[in-house]
């Protein structure tokens, strides 16, 4: 059967039925000045062979540089079995199925994903995924406003140590829905939010506080003190966490005396390759108390009529096909294929494997920091513990240095001046378990070489000036 939704005759019959001459007339209410007549700047269509060549060329241009950039997306080793299994025909779909219960295998996998994520976060319940860490953070803010029974302000305190992209996504997604995001400044000596700085909000109606752990600078926030302050003042806590780090760090469910109320994050480190920036997936967990305010799909385990175990979508009355305009969000599908990869990744790694990955990443980052700060002109910016990222200060503008490194096959890190101009010539660097001591030494010696000419040049000039004098 051909899948042609409507023929020309169908269209004509439908238009006649509603008394409209042309399809364009249905769009009358859109003012002409808002209409786009043609898509300038969009190139002609390419055929499969042409697009294959174009993409191969682009991939070659990216190359296979030695990367020390993190900033929200992390290069981890992905066991070959992960994608070999994920791309099997039985799993190979981006969607949760429309007739979900007909696909018991997919539902079981999602159920196991939820279980693993909930345990990793130390929380009571997880959904079947969201789009990415940024949109998960925005959804968490919206959810907190729905879940808070007393707060009317919809004010969300957002530390500037939260990933800058997540902050942008949250503002873009939720500010038109009445949420007010207020930025909390960090301590410039330590790169974290001082719990004492929250004192100025004492007695005010605040709906939620966002805490990223580790934060964007790789630093560890005082999550217990921040969480306890929030709960003592009737403020919900939204944790934004790196899933790999949870194998070592205290899970959000155990922060402070009561634990975070909502915990979200970017799932990419769990078996998803960097692949030019996406697609990634987000995850979300919460307390059972708030489950009806959680967006996204939730898979439950149940018994069928014959008493056999089975899996089913549950709590669907929150979702748009039932609750319509008042649904908890318009998310109806999710990043299913990436969740499949993450579930297989987690099951292959196990709790010990994940902890070893996290510990190795931390150790490599310490090694990297020690090596790079031996290079004259490089020093660490913040004091205190970090997970697998660190901010370094150079003695000159960062961009030309990163460019010179790139010419030598090294992606040296993220220049921070665009997001944090107050930090000066700062660069955010990361090392995971994928970096060897040899890789780190190559970065150190290349950086020393890149920083050397200017010093050598200055020294030569000085010598000339001495001679000419």
């Amino acid at each position, binding site marked *: 059967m051909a899948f042609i939704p409507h023929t020309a005759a169908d269209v004509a019959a439908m238009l006649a039925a509603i008394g409209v001459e042309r399809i364009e007339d249905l769009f009358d209410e859109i003012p002409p000045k808002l209409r786009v007549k043609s898509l300038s700047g969009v190139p002609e269509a390419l055929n499969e062979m042409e697009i294959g060549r174009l993409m191969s060329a682009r991939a070659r241009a990216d190359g296979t540089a030695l990367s020390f950039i993190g900033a929200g997306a992390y290069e981890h080793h992905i066991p070959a079995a992960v994608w070999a299994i994920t791309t099997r025909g039985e799993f190979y779909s981006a969607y949760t199925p429309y007739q979900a219960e007909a696909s018991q295998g997919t539902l079981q996998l999602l159920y196991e994903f939820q279980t693993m994520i909930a345990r990793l976060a130390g929380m009571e319940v997880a959904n079947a995924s969201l789009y990415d860490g940024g949109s998960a953070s925005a959804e968490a803010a919206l959810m907190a406003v729905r879940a808070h*029974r*007393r707060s009317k302000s919809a004010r969300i305190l957002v530390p500037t140590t939260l990933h800058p992209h997540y902050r942008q996504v949250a503002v873009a997604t939720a500010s038109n829905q009445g949420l007010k995001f207020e930025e909390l400044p960090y301590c410039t000596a330590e790169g974290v939010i001082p719990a004492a700085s929250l004192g100025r909000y004492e007695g005010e109606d605040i709906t939620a506080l966002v805490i990223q752990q580790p934060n964007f600078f790789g630093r560890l926030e005082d999550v217990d003190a921040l969480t306890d302050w929030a709960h003592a003042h009737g403020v919900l806590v939204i944790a934004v966490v790196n899933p790999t780090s949870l194998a070592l760090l205290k899970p959000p469910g155990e922060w402070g005396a009561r634990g975070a109320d909502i915990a979200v994050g970017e799932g990419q480190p769990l078996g998803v390759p960097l692949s030019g920036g996406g697609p990634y997936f987000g995850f979300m967990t919460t307390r059972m108390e708030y489950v*009806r305010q959680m967006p996204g799909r939730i898979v439950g385990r149940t018994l069928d009529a014959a008493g056999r175990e089975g899996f089913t979508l549950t709590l669907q*009355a*929150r979702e748009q096909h*039932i*609750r319509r305009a*008042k649904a908890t969000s318009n998310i109806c599908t999710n990043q299913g294929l990436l969740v499949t990869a993450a579930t297989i990744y987690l099951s292959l790694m196990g709790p010990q494997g994940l902890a070893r990955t996290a510990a190795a990443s931390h150790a490599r980052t310490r090694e990297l920091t020690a090596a790079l700060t031996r290079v004259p002109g490089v020093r660490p910016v913040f004091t205190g513990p970090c997970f697998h990222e660190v901010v370094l200060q150079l003695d000159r503008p960062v961009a030309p240095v990163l460019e010179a490194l790139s010419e030598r096959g090294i992606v040296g890190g993220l220049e921070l001046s665009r997001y944090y101009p107050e930090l000066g010539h700062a660069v955010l660097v990361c090392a995971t378990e994928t970096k060897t001591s040899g890789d780190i030494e190559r970065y150190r010696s290349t950086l020393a070489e890149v920083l050397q000419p200017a010093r050598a040049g200055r020294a030569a000039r000085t010598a000339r000036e001495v001679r000419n004098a």
Partner: protein
Amino acid sequence: MSNAPADLRYTKSHEWLRSLADGTVEIGITDHAQHTLGDLVFVEVPQAGRKVQAGEACAVVESVKAAADVYAPLAGEITAGNERLATQPETVNAQPYGAGWLMRLRPAPGALEAAQLLSPADYEKVLAAEES
């Protein structure tokens, strides 16, 4: 055949009201409403102290197949939500006009007089019209 007790008043959106001796009104959903929704699995009631406008959504009833808002039939201040429903939502199915009440509200001055409420007979007509 529906069941609309004579001592209550009703709304087109299937809420009922009972005037209590202390001047507050008790509000719930009708037998027709609970029957249409099916077995309730979750009820969210408003907290005491909340001020509501007439027509404002202030409670949620969720069954296995649907979720619906319950609207305040008149303006006023919530004096109580039926906390029992948090753990026993099925009470609404079993006793919609009794233990399954949702909230109590103290009407704002003049709100009771201004509200467009239906007599049992008029509510029966609404139901008959919906069925036809």
